């Protein structure tokens, strides 16, 4: 990494500082490592929010910097989650099965153990056979590799097909929606091999750490999520600084011009699309152990649309904008839909925020798009006015 990179990007330093302070504050206030003012469930919420911030900066790079309005990045987030979820579920079930068979007079054969695990996991979809895609589920290392490889390959193949035929704009957005919809519908099927609409559950129980409290596990995941966000932020800021950033933003502003300068635009789009998909997969792999469950509804088309809304509200084309948008809107969303916001009684009608939050979000989105195209992040421009 170039020495002057951080020096030329003071916003990266500021962001890292803010994130470090926030992380320390939560640690000090947590039940596991501190005074216990912040509940474990709120630590989980914050940890999940950091993962959402990570996919939001990926979305910002692909959309805000490269101009590809992908409405399918949650598919990559979800595949990352499924990949780690398979190991979590397998390893934990294996532990349970081994414990229950322990007392038997005749030691069980490997086949019997495998059948017992299969019945435990796939009983809900009326099966006990391990589908082929679970071949590596017993290996943490291989499943971690899948977290990166599966979203990466999916993005590579999809992107190659789409960019090569020069699909752009709205058509590309629709295509990405179709991709995530198709994946979601496929996973809903019982014979998809991933437990249909039940999804994978119990993911908050980390095999090998049965005796560790959820308070501690949550804090560890929170800290790892913070580190991942910091690393992702520095990576994207570095990639988008310098000449790569110039070319990528050039593609956003005038694709044809970049082509006539001799750059193979499709390769650049594919690079950005795949890189951001991989980061989205990692974000998902950190998110779902904190959420505890993943099911196909998570990668429904609407999820990816929300992602675009967060980035738009936070401010496109600046990474901290995406972080602010994702954190602000997703936390607000859980406050409103979780019953945190008091209902407003108008006499003739009572506004229940669980119903009306989406309307509020929609209206805010329209207002931001129309009146504050730079989003919340644009407010920083007033703070750091360049001397003219």
């Amino acid at each position: 990494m170039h020495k002057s990179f951080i020096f030329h990007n003071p916003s990266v330093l500021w962001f890292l500082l803010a994130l470090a302070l926030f992380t320390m504050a939560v640690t000090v206030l947590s039940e596991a490592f501190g005074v216990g003012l912040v509940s474990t469930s709120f630590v989980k919420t914050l940890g999940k929010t950091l993962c959402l911030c990570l996919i939001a900066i990926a979305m910002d790079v692909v959309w805000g910097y490269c101009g590809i309005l992908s409405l399918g990045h949650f598919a990559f987030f979800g595949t990352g989650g499924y990949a780690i979820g398979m190991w979590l579920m397998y390893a934990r079930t294996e532990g349970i099965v081994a414990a229950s068979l322990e007392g038997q007079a005749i030691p069980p054969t490997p086949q019997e153990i495998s059948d017992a695990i299969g019945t435990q996991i796939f009983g809900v979809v009326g099966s006990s056979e391990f589908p082929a895609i679970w071949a590596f589920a017993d290996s943490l290392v291989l499943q971690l590799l899948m977290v990166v490889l599966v979203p990466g390959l999916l993005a590579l193949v999809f992107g190659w097909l789409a960019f090569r035929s020069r699909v752009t704009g709205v058509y590309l957005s629709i295509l990405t929606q179709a991709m995530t919809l198709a994946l979601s519908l496929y996973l809903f099927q019982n014979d998809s091999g991933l437990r249909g609409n039940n999804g994978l559950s119990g993911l908050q129980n980390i095999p090998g750490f049965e005796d560790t409290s959820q308070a501690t596990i949550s804090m560890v995941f929170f800290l790892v999520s913070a580190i991942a966000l910091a690393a992702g932020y520095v990576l994207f800021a570095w990639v988008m600084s310098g000449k790569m950033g110039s070319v990528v933003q050039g593609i956003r502003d005038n694709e044809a011009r970049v082509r006539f300068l001799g750059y193979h635009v499709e390769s650049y789009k594919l690079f950005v699309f795949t890189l951001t998909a991989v980061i989205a997969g990692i974000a998902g792999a950190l998110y779902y152990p904190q959420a505890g469950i993943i099911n196909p509804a998570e990668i429904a088309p609407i999820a990816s649309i929300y992602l675009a809304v967060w980035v738009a509200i936070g401010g496109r084309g600046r990474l901290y904008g995406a972080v602010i948008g994702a954190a602000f809107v997703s936390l607000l969303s859980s406050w409103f839909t979780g019953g945190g916001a008091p209902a407003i009684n108008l006499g003739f009608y009572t506004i229940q925020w669980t119903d009306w939050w989406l309307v509020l979000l929609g209206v805010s989105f329209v207002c931001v798009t129309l009146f504050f195209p730079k989003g919340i992040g644009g407010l920083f421009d007033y703070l750091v006015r360049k001397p003219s």
Partner: protein
Amino acid sequence: MSTLLEVSGVSVTFDGFRAINNLSIQIAEPELRAVIGPNGAGKTTFMDIVTGKTRPDEGQVVWGEKNISLLGMSESQIANAGIGRKFQKPTVFEDQSVRQNLAMALKNPRGPFSVLRHRKTADGAAKIEAIADEIGLTDHLTRSAGELSHGQKQWLEIGMLLAQDPRLLLVDEPAAGMTAQEREKTTDILKRAAETRAVVVVEHDMEFVRRLECKVTVLHEGSVLAEGSLDHVTKDQSVIDVYLGRSDA
């Protein structure tokens, strides 16, 4: 002087309308060539064909001493083969600085991974300074390109062409919207560029073309109507009929 680009018997039809009709043009290296013709004559389409934006229905476009056909190549491959292009409407990257615009155009490896590893070099910086000097934007290198005047944007785009270090420059209406003074400077830049390369300039303004002092090709309805010195073609009766006659009227 050897032939660098040879376009022969090229035709293009858009929805039944023949925009280019059996067009043949040869460009030598080095050479300065002006292409004139009324609106819709096919001047821009000619450049589209050479740069790979439009595929002709028939004909040949042959490049360089190895006689490579450009027809099967993509836009970026053609650009890397040594053909640079300035668009009719000035297109620079407005959100980026003049220096970034020039740096992006600078002749360097174009693949994503080479670009990712790219480091600024003293040599590159010197080249950018030299080009900025040539196009008169030395004092504006750190400004964002969107802040430049119309004329300066045109020069920046010409500068980006020079930074690509192409063998052939295709320049579409470089003087459009420029003041008389700016035009003069533009002619100087183009004439200097043509000392070592092939430069094809499309222009409507006759005064501008006269100052280029070069061979002129007149296009009309997608084919060559006349070719020669400006004095020669302006005396040509068919040219007077279709082009000069109309604009003088």
